[in-house]
């Protein structure tokens, strides 16, 4: 194949070189004859030169090279004719004379060359000569030869048409003659060009491909006629509308050739000015559905829309014309009609047409959301009954339809006003739909959009369905990529923080709507989505608290706490006990801040139930109890009875932890539950001391246990830690913590540290040393603290 094509190229080169050589040779003699003013000889050699153009061997591009060479040579001949004419030779005679050339192709080239001079001389009306030439050219029916001959005619006559305002207007004819001439030449050229398609075998693939390649190379010769028409001064909008466009379109539609139709439509759009297109949209668009099914009408129409959009972008004052001629409505109707008429149009083309239309709207009428929505709606309508769209290119086009408005407005709130947006998104299968949903969230987060209207929030959740719950189309959750899943759910979670409204009523509605949606997500999603909901609800509580009294039926902290209770309970049921435990405590503290004792108590109770029933891991228990004591310590809402119940439970559970050191630490931490710094806080020195003593006992037991199992006393860390707690309470002024007690503890530790079985541990030693240093420091400080520390002796 490759080898074959190389030979073919070489062959072409050779044929061309041979022909060019002959042209050089003959033109040499032609010029010599011209130099000696020998007309007869000159005609003879020029005819012999032109004979080379009769070849059928050259490809269009090679033929073009040969044509250009002869074209240049013919200029010498033309100049000579011009001089002859000046010298008084009648052009009519010359015109007659060249007709004696034996062969038709050279004869016609010569005739056109003389014709050029003849017209210029004005010895006969331009229109008559032109008409004659265009008629005579019918004599060449070989496509390539005919096309070049006629393009010669077109090139030579371009500046000699009886155009409005030209030298040849009047006697020479009118703009109508000019138009008629160009249209006729165009029509004939198009026919020649189309006829090529039917030469040779339609079945032989290689043959057909070669032919189509040749046709494609020749197309500019045909298209150029349209450019000539567009350059005529006299072709004003009126004439364009009444004659030029209808006639051109008639030829385009009637030729029924897909290559010609696609290309010529493109040419029309590109060579005629925007103003004309705007004023003739209907006519131009009406041709579209009539074209052959295989024409890439999508690209053509997209080209038109792009051109008009560029026009509008560069001249904002023309937008009123767009509105006046109802450009959008017409384009929109045309898109629908084309899609309907061309039943075999690939789906991707149909969707792409909508993309082009959308781009048109976004560039020309960005403020018309109704237009944008109508484009989406039209696409939805077209896709109806197709189920989920899976073909990759179509999917990509749909994604483009959905992404463009997002990019344009950078504001999901605007996009949410597009009623068909969600419906269009719903045509995407699961994976792509999700990608799109993620894009929506990212756009919100990136642009810092706030959505504070419950209806909008609901519409938004509608778009995000595939992320929020298991759709019909979705694979089971456990088959999803876990990392992706987590990332997506985190995005949904972050979304919650932008769903805010200053009005607490609306805010509560939003949270309730979110709760309802998230509720559909199943346990795997709840662990991501409910915690931020709790956080946002607590923020609302704080706002309500600041607001104070509300009117009847309004949202109250109590109502929100009920909501919170349910929400956390749902998490507990997932089950996600540790998470729920933590959130219960957050709620409890908030309720306490609101002075709602029963509610705070209920949250603590729920937390304890979870602890008892569902938190079994020992490490988790340690953490949970730390949180619990911390929260309880900060809570001052409780009366004695409730407080006793809760602290009792907390110390009880602390003492029951699995490992002795954990027990010890949890218990000494409980000492804080009985000595609160807050104004209303409990201060029960005795129970503080009880806790500390209990911790000490546990530390002893731990030490013994260590002795028994490892034969060594283990580090004295726990003792040092307890000492620090004692000192803490001593500093706080707890009378129960006396210097005697402290002294005893100090001695105990010193014995332990110096015992033979003691294990060396640098960290503990440092800790111990710094504790002692603290005591010495206090002693030296003097004043009230110095007095108190006075009695303590440190070795």
């Amino acid at each position: 194949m490759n080898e074959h094509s190389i030979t073919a190229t070489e062959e072409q080169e050779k044929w061309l070189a041979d022909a060019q050589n002959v042209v050089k040779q003959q033109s040499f003699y032609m010029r010599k004859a011209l130099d000696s003013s020998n007309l007869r000889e000159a005609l003879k050699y020029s005819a012999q030169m032109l004979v080379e153009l009769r070849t059928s061997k050259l490809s269009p591009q090679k033929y073009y090279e040969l044509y250009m060479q002869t074209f240049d040579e013919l200029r010498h001949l033309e100049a000579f004719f011009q001089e002859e004419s000046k010298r008084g030779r009648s052009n009519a005679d010359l015109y007659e004379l060249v007709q004696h050339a034996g062969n038709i192709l050279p004869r016609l080239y010569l005739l056109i060359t003389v014709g050029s001079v003849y017209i210029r001389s004005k010895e006969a009306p331009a229109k008559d000569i032109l008409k004659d030439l265009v008629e005579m050219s019918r004599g060449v029916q070989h496509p390539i030869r005919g096309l070049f001959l006629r393009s010669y005619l077109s090139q030579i006559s371009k500046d000699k048409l009886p155009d409005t305002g030209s030298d040849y207007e009047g006697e020479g004819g009118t703009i109508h003659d000019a138009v008629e001439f160009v249209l006729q030449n165009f029509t004939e050229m198009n026919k020649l060009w189309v006829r090529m398609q039917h030469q040779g075998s339609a079945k032989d693939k290689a043959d057909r491909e070669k032919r189509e390649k040749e046709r494609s190379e020749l197309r500019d010769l045909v298209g150029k006629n349209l450019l000539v028409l567009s350059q005529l001064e006299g072709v004003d909008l009126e004439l364009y509308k009444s004659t030029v466009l209808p006639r051109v379109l008639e030829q385009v539609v009637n030729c029924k050739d897909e290559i010609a139709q696609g290309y010529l439509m493109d040419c029309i759009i590109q060579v005629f000015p925007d103003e004309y297109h705007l004023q003739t949209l209907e006519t131009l668009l009406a041709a579209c559905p009539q074209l052959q099914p295989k024409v890439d009408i999508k690209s053509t129409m997209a080209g038109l829309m792009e051109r008009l959009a560029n026009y509008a972008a560069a001249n904002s004052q023309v937008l009123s014309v767009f509105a006046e001629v109802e450009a959008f409505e017409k384009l929109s109707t045309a898109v629908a009609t084309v899609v309907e008429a061309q039943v075999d149009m690939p789906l991707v083309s149909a969707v792409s047409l909508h993309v082009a239309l959308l781009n048109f709207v976004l560039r020309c009428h960005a403020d018309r959301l109704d237009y944008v929505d109508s484009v989406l709606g039209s696409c939805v309508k077209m896709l109806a009954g197709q189920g989920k769209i899976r073909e990759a290119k179509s999917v990509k086009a749909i994604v483009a339809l959905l992404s463009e408005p997002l990019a344009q407005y950078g504001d999901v709130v605007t996009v949410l006003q597009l009623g068909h947006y969600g419906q269009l998104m719903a045509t995407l299968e699961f994976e792509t739909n999700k990608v799109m949903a993620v894009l929506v969230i990212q756009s919100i987060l990136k642009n810092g959009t706030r959505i504070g209207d419950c209806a909008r929030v609901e519409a938004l959740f509608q778009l995000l369905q595939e992320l929020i719950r298991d759709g019909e189309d979705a694979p089971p959750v456990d088959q999803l990529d876990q990392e992706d899943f987590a990332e997506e759910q985190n995005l949904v979670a972050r979304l919650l923080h932008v769903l805010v409204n200053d009005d607490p009523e609306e805010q509560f509605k939003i949270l309730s709507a979110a709760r309802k949606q998230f509720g559909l997500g199943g346990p795997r999603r709840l662990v991501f989505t409910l915690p931020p909901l709790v956080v946002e609800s607590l923020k609302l509580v704080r706002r309500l608290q600041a607001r104070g009294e509300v009117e009847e039926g309004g949202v109250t902290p109590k109502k929100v706490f009920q909501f919170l209770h349910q929400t956390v309970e749902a998490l507990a049921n997932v089950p996600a006990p540790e998470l729920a435990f933590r959130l219960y405590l957050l709620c409890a503290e908030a309720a306490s801040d609101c002075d709602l004792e029963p509610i705070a108590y209920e949250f603590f109770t729920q937390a304890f139930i979870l602890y008892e029933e569902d938190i079994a891991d020992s490490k988790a228990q340690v953490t949970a109890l730390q949180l619990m004591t911390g929260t309880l310590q900060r809570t001052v809402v409780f009366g004695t009875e409730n407080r006793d119940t809760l602290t009792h439970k907390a110390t009880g559970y602390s003492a029951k932890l699995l490992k002795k050191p954990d027990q010890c630490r949890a218990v000494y931490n409980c000492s804080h539950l009985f000595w609160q710094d807050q104004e209303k806080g409990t201060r029960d020195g005795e129970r503080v001391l009880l806790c500390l003593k209990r911790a000490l006992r546990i530390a002893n037991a731990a030490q013994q246990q260590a002795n028994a199992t490892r034969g060594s006393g283990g580090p004295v860390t726990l003792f040092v830690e307890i000492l620090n707690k004692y000192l803490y309470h001593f500093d706080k002024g707890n009378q129960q913590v006396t210097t005697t007690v402290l002294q005893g503890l100090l001695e105990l530790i010193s014995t332990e540290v110096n015992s033979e079985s003691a294990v060396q541990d640098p960290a503990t030693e440092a800790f111990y040393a710094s504790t002692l240093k603290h005591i010495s420091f206090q002693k030296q400080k003097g004043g009230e603290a110095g007095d108190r520390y006075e009695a303590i002796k440190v070795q």
Partner: protein
Amino acid sequence: MSGRKRTLLKVIILGDSGVGKTSLMNQYVNKKFSNQYKATIGADFLTKEVQVDDRLVTMQLWDTAGQERFQSLGVAFYRGADCCVLVYDVNVNKTFDNLDNWREEFLIQASPSDPENFPFVVLGNKVDVDGGNSRVVSEKKAKAWSASKGNIPYFETSAKEDYNVDAAFQIIAKNALKNETEEEIYLPDTIDVNAQRPQKSSGCEC
């Protein structure tokens, strides 16, 4: 022989679609400008007689399609060019970036005998747009590029306001003329020479 021989200079105008090639030519040759865009299809020339120093020469100015799809017959007309004009739009970066491609493509296709010294001229067009406020390619940058490609003369133009157009084409004509090589003299092969030449050249026609 000298009586008929006129100096014909072939000039090719290249550049992206929409930069104003057709407009520049129209302004120069016909003193006309239109805001309407009409895509050029294929290639075509206009001629213009100009005086360069003391000589009257004919310039054949080839306008080309910037849109590739409208250049289906190829670029055979590059051959024999005496000067190549590269046009870009000072308001569109891409059109400037593409000058390199246009230049390369021209040198490959036209294959001039001395590519190093082949005369190019660069035109930065549409300097009028928005009072120069929307311009994105600076004169300095364009000059630097032109200088780096063998000291190509550079002009800032506006086809719309007829700014610098004549001046630019004057230099184009001048440089084309400098480059103009004697058209290779065709010598028919020996047999023909023997057959034809003697009879012709024998008689003195002066």
